[in-house]
């Protein structure tokens, strides 16, 4: 039980550390990616818990919310913000696809490890490859949003 709280705390510390790695001149891109990603994870996270596919036995705001606040509201969107500010723009397609793959695979592996060894997340009717696909897809949708958002003069 105790180790779960240490992991949760370290998720916050590492994610917060990512903020300092975002260059100041790209802060708006980071903010747009963060907020849009949050809107996706927030809703999908709720649907997944409501449908009984995943449970988060140890969580914040436990009495009012059954989804993972730290992951869906904070850690994953921050990861996505970092993903977007470091995106290999203008590089070849294989490099761009590889960039998606690295982020999705690393996050999925971390999730599976946390699922196996802690009570922070429990798969009920869920598989690791569903995570992999949905994580990759959410990165792509967020990227598309950012491309639209910064595409041309808004006024």
């Amino acid at each position, binding site marked *: 039980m105790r180790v779960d709280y240490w992991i949760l705390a370290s998720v916050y510390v590492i994610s917060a550390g990512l903020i300092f790695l975002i260059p100041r001149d*790209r802060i708006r891109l980071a903010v*747009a990616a963060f907020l849009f990603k949050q*809107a996706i994870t*927030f809703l999908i996270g709720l649907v997944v818990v409501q449908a009984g596919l995943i449970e988060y036995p140890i969580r914040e705001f436990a009495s009012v919310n059954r989804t993972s606040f730290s992951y869906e509201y904070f850690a994953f969107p921050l990861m996505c913000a970092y993903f977007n500010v470091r995106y290999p723009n203008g590089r070849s397609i294989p490099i761009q696809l590889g960039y998606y793959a690295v982020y999705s695979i690393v996050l999925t592996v971390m999730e599976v490890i946390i699922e196996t060894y802690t009570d922070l997340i429990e798969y009920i009717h869920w598989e690791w490859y569903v995570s992999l696909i949905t994580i990759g897809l959410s990165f792509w949708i967020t990227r598309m949003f950012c*491309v639209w958002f910064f595409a041309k003069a808004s*006024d």
Partner: protein
Amino acid sequence: MWVERLVLVLMWLSGALVLVVFIPSNKRREGALALLVLQAIIWLCDLFAFRYGLLSAPVREFPKATDLSITINYFFYPALFAVFYSRRKEKAGLARRATMLVLWITCLTIFDGLIEQYTGLLEYGKITTYGMWLYLWLLYYTSLSFCDWFFKKRTLFRADRRRVL
């Protein structure tokens, strides 16, 4: 129960409608960001408000997943804020802008009170109507400040555009 369902459906439909109709086409980005900002802030604040019994949502969309109201927090109030933000008069004086905000918040509080009174979608606990006015004002003020910071410097905005494209 059917009243609540009807109100929720109406919130989704009218929310989508006001987004399409009232946000000028050259302000879509401002509207989108404003929506996302209020969404993030209202969710965080409501987690505390619900946790400490200020208000509750007896009838809600995903009762198993969360005690919070999703339509109101995720879509309807953020959509209203997007309209407010994209149509605000940037160049108007402070008094005029403050009056607009106060009027808007007052209407929103009345609407919120009606929802509380006549449906089970919201139930005030420790919070009073005045408290709700202040709460909504705080949500708006924080979101407005953030959005204004975001769009303040066009040059920085363009710098980010070069990064993404």
